[in-house]
């Protein structure tokens, strides 16, 4: 497949304009780390790479804002920010090497979302190349702004089907002064989930709570961030609940592995589940139905990512989760199984939107939930 890596947003937009005119499918491509999250591209597609658009355009430490080109790798951006004691509190899978545009397009977030939310909460604005080659911006560079529609939100989790992100402005956070990670163990999932709930309940306010493992060995990892005194106090409280503190280096390696779970994928199907966090029973029974070998679970968020032996339990899990407004998505290894699950009742609106923004249907056609 042909690969073009434009060196300017204008050049990228021009490629899109031509593709639209010729009705040629385009696959927007960052570092290529998450291409497995959508269906394989059409054979005649043009791959449009963003990795040559990798500059930090503007970092104003005193404003806590950053404007960066979409092909910049999140890991590299974090290094730049760390030099100023700042960060993006965002730890998606493959975050070290993946591009910011690709991560946003896939709507990925990691364990930090427990306390820090998802990129939706941190993106202030964006510049987008539309399928017809128009370059447009939405939002701005200030944290408060209600002028016009927040169009940039549409591109987060759109898998590139509404346009190609070329620039993003983020709100930043100062790095927390202190961190502490603790671990607990459990022989079964139910016990581990219960422990996770206790570690997330007041007076504790963790940055992340994750259950991982499978079979008869599960671990519960919790971390606290913030003012040293408050972090120490929470650490002590969590220890009182039966968790054991972990040394800093081991903790960093652990969280990295939890963020990156399933990335890159192996031969087994990788399945993602999302359900309202209050649906605790449905969460567990759906996980049981899928028969996961191994997984990373965020019960307090209602999220899970699992490696399964096969997809025999997929329909059963969906039957539990979908009526409650949740979804089970096969991130990788779907084979002939339906990847996205039942359409939402807003599907008609999503089609209309795609139709308006990419009338020629050239952006990732047939790859995502929308067509």
């Amino acid at each position: 497949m042909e690969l073009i890596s434009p060196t300017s947003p204008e050049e990228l937009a021009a490629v899109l304009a031509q593709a639209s005119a010729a009705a040629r499918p385009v696959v927007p491509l960052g570092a290529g780390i998450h291409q497995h999250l959508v269906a394989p591209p059409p054979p005649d597609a043009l791959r449009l790479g963003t990795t040559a658009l990798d500059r930090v355009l503007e970092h104003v430490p005193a404003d806590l804002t950053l404007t960066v080109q979409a092909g910049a790798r999140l890991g590299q951006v974090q290094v730049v920010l760390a030099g100023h004691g700042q960060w993006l509190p965002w730890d998606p899978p493959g975050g070290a090497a993946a591009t910011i545009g690709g991560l946003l397009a896939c709507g990925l977030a990691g364990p930090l979302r427990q306390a820090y939310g998802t990129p939706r909460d941190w993106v202030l604005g964006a510049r987008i190349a539309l399928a017809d080659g128009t370059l447009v911006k939405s939002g701005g560079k200030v944290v408060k702004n209600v002028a016009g529609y927040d169009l940039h939100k549409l591109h987060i989790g759109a898998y590139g089907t509404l346009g190609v992100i070329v620039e993003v402005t983020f709100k930043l956070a100062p790095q927390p002064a202190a961190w502490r990670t603790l671990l607990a163990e459990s022989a079964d999932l139910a016990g581990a989930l219960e422990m996770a709930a206790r570690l997330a309940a007041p007076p504790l306010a963790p940055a992340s709570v994750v259950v991982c493992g499978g079979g008869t060995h599960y671990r519960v990892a919790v971390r606290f961030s913030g003012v040293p005194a408050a972090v120490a106090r929470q650490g002590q409280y969590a220890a009182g609940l039966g968790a054991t503190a972990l040394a800093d280096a081991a903790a960093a390696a652990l969280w990295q592995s939890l963020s990156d779970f399933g990335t890159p994928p192996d031969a087994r199907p990788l399945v993602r589940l999302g359900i309202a966090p209050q649906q605790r029973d449905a969460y567990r029974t759906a996980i049981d139905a899928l028969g996961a070998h191994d997984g990373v679970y965020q019960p307090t968020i209602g999220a899970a990512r699992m490696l399964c032996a096969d997809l025999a339990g997929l329909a059963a899990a969906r039957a539990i989760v979908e009526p409650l407004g949740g979804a089970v998505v096969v991130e990788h290894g779907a084979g002939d199984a339906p990847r996205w699950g039942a359409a939402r009742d807003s599907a008609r609106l999503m089609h209309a939107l795609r139709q308006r923004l990419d009338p020629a249907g050239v952006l990732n056609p047939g790859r995502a939930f929308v067509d």
Partner: protein
Amino acid sequence: MEQRIVDAFRRALGAPCVITDPMQLRTYECDGLTNFRVVPALVVIPESAAAVQAAVRICHDERLPFVARGAGTGLSGGALPVAEGVVISLTRLNRILEVDLDNECIIVEPGVINAHVTRHVSDAGYFYAPDPSSQSVCTIGGNIAENAGGAHCLKYGFTVTHVLALDVVLPDGSMVRLGGRAPDRPGYDLAGVFVGSEGTLGIVTRACLRLVKRPATIQTLLAAFHSTDDAGAAVGAIIAAGVLPAAIEIMDRLSIVAAEAAVHAGYPDCGALLLVELDGPASEVDALMARVNALCSACGAWEQRLAASDAERAVVWRGRKAAFAAMGRISPNYIVQDGVIPRTALAAVLREIHELGERAGLRVANVFHAGDGNLHPLVLYDRKVPGQEHAAEALSGEILRICIRAGGSITGEHGVGMEKRAFMAEMFAEPDLDTMQRVRCAFDPQRLANPDKVFPRPRLCGEKTGPYVPHPLEVAGVAEFF
């Protein structure tokens, strides 16, 4: 309006829910921005989501434009009617449908008053975080349409952060659920784009909102500085130190003088006042407040007063909340502006505004949400002096241009509505606006939902901002600006 259509509304909603009396129609002719007035052809006040849907269906079938209306406190003309159209008032959809404290959420109808949400859950130790100063009267539906903010949104986020799911009647009369509590669901973030769309994409009939646990401790600091530059530097230092206050506000000399004249808050006689509110666990607040004290001193604060009790805090906030209304003490007329700049541009922008004022022979008072750079400059003038009103309007518009040039926005919380449509073309390029229109067309191909708002139309350029007329609620002391 044709009798046939009126009858159709009466049949669908019940006669008492349909208003045709000209006198009654006039009470809907404007919102909080009173210099734009249009009497609608019809007003309907549905009592259920199904009735809203029925009303929108009739509008759709008859190609009638409609405008949703909450409490009508909007300050940009968002709820301004269309002369040949229908106003759909949501005030009777005012039920709290479900409270789920375990999961920190509440489901409400759009006509529920903002403050009632908090009141409903405060005994249980929760609150609804977005706190526009009109919160005792404005509705959740209006807040969602405007993505309303308040002083405490610096820490807690604006309305969009607190909306979990929405039921929306689309302009073709179909009902759709946007968003949801489940994470990672495949689909476009339609709820994210709906919030802040100013009634142009459909009508909210039900909202699931996030509730927040009330902080254990709240402390408010009042710090006196020689100048707004110094106070602004302190804001920068506090944020850079990683302290995230619940609120952080600045008042300049003119607004302090006005506030003192109006409510005698006992503020120090100074060039600028900084108000910093911290909340959270007691030990954390104590530690951070010590830090804030030190940073303020380093930036030239020559007096600092800490208010810890509710009564003390109320005194500190009184002058701040009264600042807008207090302008009446020092000027016969004034225009309230709402713009945003990057925090670091504060000193330069204030200087520029000051210079513009000098050149125009007008005074400008400044009160602002300093943490997020949201300015509320008040342009003071006297309508009786020939030419001053015009000069004040020009100056007020020029201030928005300064905000745009500084990399900011033409509105931080009041919305574009009718008032700032022309400025949209200065903040955004033509293709940006066209793209927004494409999105609007996906929701509303017939352009029936609040059709004249948000987007500039060249033939209507040069709209006037007009003088600030105190909102009746403000006059009655029910709501204050801030």
